[in-house]
């Protein structure tokens, strides 16, 4: 076996430097993944101006999404699990924001098609992000749950970090609320891409850092 002829101190320094740089990189990555997006003023009742039809016999779930956000795949995945568990006890929309000057194929994405395949969920295009603004959503994956009487029950994300699949507080809260149970939380942070461009955010937008 080969003998070591290099100084121990140098080895330790190099090793520590390597580990520290890797740890720093991991820290940056984790910070990015765990920093939630901005949230605007959320309506306390289902907006009357909305083009969406709120159900009166059951709660209505509205997810505002960016059709091209890779992180939202995890949110859609969690939505599929919620719909599977609730089995028609909620009416759901996924509203895909479409910038005014975007092309006709803006919403022609894999994400749209995956939403369309979830039973009980209706994908809806949102020209110029009007519906997003009505519902106070600034970050893709923002999900709102309204009671049958139109009252806001829940507002927030349904992933535990950016693009991170798996059980999370938002998902648990929605399921509990639809089942008329107590929910641990009515709000959760939203992880995802920004729905609106920089400079177009609402005045009441709150960005958590």
């Amino acid at each position: 076996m080969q003998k070591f002829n290099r100084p121990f101190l140098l080895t330790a320094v190099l090793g520590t430097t390597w580990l520290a740089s890797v740890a720093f990189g991991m820290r940056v990555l984790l910070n990015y993944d765990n920093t939630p997006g901005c949230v605007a003023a959320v309506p306390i009742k289902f907006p009357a101006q909305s083009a969406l039809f709120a159900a009166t016999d059951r709660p209505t779930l509205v997810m505002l999404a960016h059709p091209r956000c890779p992180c939202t795949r995890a949110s859609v995945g969690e939505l599929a699990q919620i719909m599977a568990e609730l089995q028609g006890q909620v009416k759901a929309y996924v509203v895909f924001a479409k910038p005014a000057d975007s092309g006709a194929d803006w919403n022609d994405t894999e994400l749209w098609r995956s939403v369309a395949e979830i039973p009980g969920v209706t994908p809806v295009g949102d020209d110029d992000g009007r519906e997003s603004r009505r519902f106070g959503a600034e970050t893709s994956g923002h999900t709102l749950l309204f009671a049958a009487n139109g009252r806001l029950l829940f507002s927030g994300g349904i992933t535990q970090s950016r693009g991170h699949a798996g059980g999370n507080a938002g998902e648990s809260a929605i399921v509990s609320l639809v089942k008329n149970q107590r929910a641990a939380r009515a709000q959760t942070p939203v992880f995802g891409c920004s729905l609106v461009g920089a400079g177009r955010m609402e005045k009441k937008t709150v960005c958590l850092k």
Partner: protein
Amino acid sequence: MLVSRSGQDGKEDGMSEIALHSVEGKACAERAEKLFQQSLAENYRNTDQLFEKVLLLQWLACIVLALLMSAQTWIGESSQITIHVWAALLLGGAITISPVWMIRVWPGARSTRYVVSIAQMLMSALLIGLTGGRIETHFHVFGSLVILSFYRDWRVLIPATIVVGLDHFLRGIYWPYTVYGVLNASPWRSFEHAGWVVFENVFLAIACLRSVQEIRAVAKRTAALEASERASRLIFEQAPIGMIALGLDEKFLRVNERFCQMVGYSEEELLQLKAEHITAPEDIEPARKLAQGLIDGAARFTSDKRYVRKNGQPLWVSRTACLMRDSEGNPNHFLLMVEDISERKRSEAELRDAKEDADRANHAKSEFLSRMSHELRTPLNAVLGFGQLLERQNPTDTQRTRIRYIISAGRHLLNLINEVLDISRIEAGNLQLSLEPVAVAEVLHEALDLMRPMASERDIELSVSTQLDSSCYVSADRQRLKQVLLNLMTNAVKYTPRAGKVNLSDEFNGGQIRLIITDTGAGIPVEKLSRLFTPFDRLGAEHSGVEGTGLGLALCQRLAHAMGGTLGVKSSAGNGSTFWVELPLTESPLDRLAGQIREAQERQHIVEERKILYIEDNLSNLTLIEQLLIDEPAVHLITAMQGQLGLDLARQHLPDLILLDLHLPDLPGWEVLARLQKDKLTAGIPVVVISADATARQIERLLTAGARSYLTKPIDMSEFLRVVAQTKASPNTGEVCAAA
């Protein structure tokens, strides 16, 4: 390699131990340890190289994954490269570059594999992060631990486990939902997660330790096999005889130095040749047959063979070969041990030549003795003849005493010559014996009659305790049998003190008769008995004053053997001696031929007046012929029992026919024939030889010497009468008649 590698582990371990302790002991153990370390180091290097590829591949996979899953992040309608891509590129690179560099610089080093271990687990953390914490990606951790166990060094699992533990512990504190999916996780969750890793590590560590044990066992077996192979190779290469491993196609597979020296070829040259190329042409096919025999199941063979040396000289070798088979029993190659026997072959040839020279010398000696015998006998004849004449011419007492000395010395010399000649003839295989039925009682009484005066002179009581009658016959030469009995009785009388006793008796033993001569003499010490039949060895009797040549017993023993019998002795000092001669019994010729005689007499009668002289020493044969001719009134039969007497009677009576036996007491029959031919008076008398010797050489010899006919014993009476009736004084017809 000639050492079989088959066998079960247990047997191999046993073989390993034996080899370790007996073949090379400590050196073998050191070699095993070295092989073990080499094997481990090689495994470390190989696994390092594996991880070099794995780490680079994972880095690449991270980049591809980041690009596929989240290449861009969006802000409204604008997009930018996601931090995941940069993390995959930069962080993945930082994780990968360090261990890869160490693998390149210090392959197999312990620090290298520890860094690899840490990097691999960091790569797991990165992958989990890039895939958004997918539960499936967590399997990368367990897979990585398994791949790390390829090092077979359980210690590399420790830094890997520490990294995993720290990752879970720190994220459990700061970002618990990224690990456990909840915002407030109990610290025990970190222990639980780490526990599963440890659980796997325990079994991986056990597997590593077992694997190392197996590597060590393999190293031991390899060292033992190497030692065994080295020992076999040394035996093969340094054997003092030639060793060859020969393929089934006769091609040399391996040869040792000794064989190269034998044939004069180098090892490289021989390995290009086949056995037939250096084999003498006449030995190729026999060698192939022997080889085929081995393939057909023979265990081994040993044979002599000639190789041809490189310089063209023949090389005689003795080969022992066996067939080596593989583990399935199929013929693999031949193993031959070759010994140079050129020297032995040369010695054998020299010995053969020497024997031929000795035979020629012996023959020359016999010829010399024969000639000398003749030359000595002639003057001895004059000495003895004139000595006897002088004795009859009334010499004075002084002269008589001197004459007796002359006669005694002459007779002693004559006996000596006769015995030397007889022994010489026997040893040369030239003694002519006439084996025929001989009446034992008749010969015995003749010998007794001859011995009585000598026994009486020495005051020895010569007794006979035998009831032999005339019908007891043995197959023997009559004269030689009588000679043997006389010799034994003479010895008994000579070596028995005055007033002693000599007894003659007989015993029948199956188809044999034993004639026994017992004396009350001084006896012979047991330790001297083995020298008793050695010519000229008188066992010290030469100092006793008893006359003798030391040839008598040696001659008697050889004569007994030549007649198909044996001669033996039983004696001890002070207890007298017992000598015996044992001979095969045979049928009486008179009984067998009685019917033939009557038949012959009825058929044919000789009308013409004939005078026939029959020279024969055997009384039975004389009686037989007398009985046969008793009813032939025209035939007048004259008989002579000695050769000289026969010659005298022939000159005196000039018979019409002479019947001649070849074995006469005084003269050989051929000499009688020669003298008859030489004498003008008798030269024209036809001679018919009657002999038991029916060899073509003897018949040819006698017919050439002048015999008219040759009748072989036992005599066919009809043929005998026909020959007697028809043989007249006419030219030699060379007729040969044999009994039916």
